[in-house]
């Protein structure tokens, strides 16, 4: 077991990124499905900026996002989102006016066109004036590069296009809080880069919470990363801090080392080892992925 790593900005759990006032405050959150406790006494505070939520399957990321998006009620705990209590009807409706949510599995009406689908959600977001609404629909479709697909039926879209369509829906109305559950799934490399640029821009003025399995997305665009495991926060800090968890534990060698360490062959034919460096190996710069793997593999206690 490694020693606990104190990240320099771990205090962001209390003081959000950029020193901004918190837009999300969660204390003692708990949620179970039957006997399976998916979120367990979770504390989290978010402010303006992009925060990445990492964790293995079943860590509780989606459940946390659903609680914040008001589509799922927690069993216990206190939540304040944009200063509002999602547990009561009036504030919950007001919160829904101000948030954008991209769920993990965005369903669509296949017989609708792209324009109709986004227009439908715009109506659900109470945009009743037709001209204003249509202008907003065209704006978000252009943002996700689907402007020329407005008349295409949803059933004819590729997986990546559907993902962008779902993102367009989440962007309607310039939400103050964006909750994105695995937004880069199904996107080709170019679209992923475009999405990173868009999310990064959005994060300059609002709170973006991004759940993902892609550590490179976190490294590229998140100023803060929260690692969840077993329904709890295992790490809360910067991507650099997460990479630092693997400091001195990543090495490169010419021969495949023995042992049960995590080893893979790299493009230059050398072997990258995560864990105790083998004899004669040369130290390597750890990545966010290294830190994440190291954390999940060796640290059962929260690092904060």
């Amino acid at each position, binding site marked *: 077991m490694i020693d606990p790593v104190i990240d320099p900005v771990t205090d962001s759990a209390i003081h959000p990124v950029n020193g901004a006032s918190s837009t999300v405050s969660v204390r003692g959150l708990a949620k179970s499905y039957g006997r399976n406790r998916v979120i367990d006494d979770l504390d989290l505070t978010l402010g303006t900026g992009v925060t990445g939520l990492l964790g293995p399957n079943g860590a509780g990321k989606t459940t946390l996002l*659903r609680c914040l*998006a*008001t*589509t*799922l*009620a927690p069993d216990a705990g206190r939540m304040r989102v944009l200063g509002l209590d999602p547990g009561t*009807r009036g504030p*919950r*409706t*007001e919160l*829904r*006016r101000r*948030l954008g*949510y*991209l*769920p993990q*599995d*965005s*369903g*669509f*009406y296949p017989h*609708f*066109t792209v*324009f*109709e*689908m986004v*227009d*439908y*959600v715009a*109506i*659900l*977001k*109470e945009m*009743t004036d*037709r*001209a204003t*609404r*249509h*202008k907003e629909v*065209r704006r978000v479709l252009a943002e996700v590069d689907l402007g020329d697909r*407005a*008349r295409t039926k949803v059933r004819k879209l590729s997986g990546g296009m559907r993902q962008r369509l*779902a993102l367009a*829906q*989440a962007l309607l109305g310039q939400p103050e809080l964006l909750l994105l559950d695995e937004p880069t799934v199904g996107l080709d490399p170019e679209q992923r880069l475009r999405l990173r640029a868009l999310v990064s821009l959005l994060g300059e003025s609002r709170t973006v919470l991004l759940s993902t399995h892609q550590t490179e997305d976190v490294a590229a665009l998140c100023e803060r990363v929260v690692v969840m495991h077993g329904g709890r926060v295992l790490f809360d800090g910067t991507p650099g801090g997460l990479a630092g968890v693997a400091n001195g534990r990543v090495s490169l060698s010419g021969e495949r080392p023995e042992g049960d360490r995590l080893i893979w062959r790299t493009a230059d034919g050398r072997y990258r080892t995560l864990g105790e460096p083998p004899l004669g190996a040369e130290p390597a710069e750890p990545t966010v992925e290294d830190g994440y793997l190291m954390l999940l593999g060796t640290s059962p206690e929260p690092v904060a």
Partner: protein
Amino acid sequence: MNGTWHIPSDLLERYLGGDLDVAQVMSVEAHLVRCARCRTAVPGDETWLAASWERIEDAVGSPRPRPAERVLRHLGVPRHLARLLVATPTLSRAWLAAVTAVLTFAIVAAHAAGNGFPAFLTVAPVLPLAGIALAYGRWVDPAHESHAATPLAGPRLLLLRALAVLVTAIALTGLAAPLLPAMTAAWLLPSLALAGGCLALATRVPLPLAAAALGAGWIGVVAVTGGLTGDWSVPFGPTAQVVYGCAAPVLALVLYSRRHRLDPGEPQ
């Protein structure tokens, strides 16, 4: 059109506001080309021009409404509500086909039985109940999860869809009723009372549960009454109709007063 005619102020106002249809716009613009005096009344500022271009872009760039939406609009339903309603799962073609099949079966049964039409009268009030129960929720709506996080989601959208489903089911049943061996409207008040009761009960228990309980209860009452009295028509007789007629508006009032507590059966 003679040389002394000028565009009336109200018409000009509607033209500037973009409220005229295409033919009227063309007529007004044909006159503007020839009439200097009317042209001076048309602002030439950039804001107005930008707004005009936006309207043109919207007219050209927005897809034409779907046929079902156009029908709803002809019936006086506002444009945005029409779009919301066409996505109701229990207003889909598959659902409407299922309702039609059930009604056809009930009519065939009525002709075959020769002793009245208990099947039709029993089934007709249950159809709106099933439609309402399946009009909203993650199990029936593929886009539910992302839509559930919008302000219109929940009781407001459910009520809107329930009303549309009720009206459609009653209209279909109304169209089927003349095909029975004899004319009857004895299904109408039970339908309204059960639909109102279902939604009112859904302010206390989840909607699918309320619909299932009332549907099963209704079929049970019809069967037991028929079994006990030997007369299947008792639940549809004059006394029962008075009860349904009184219950429907009372239940509607209960629903209205408790509408914010409507439970769509969501985890929230």
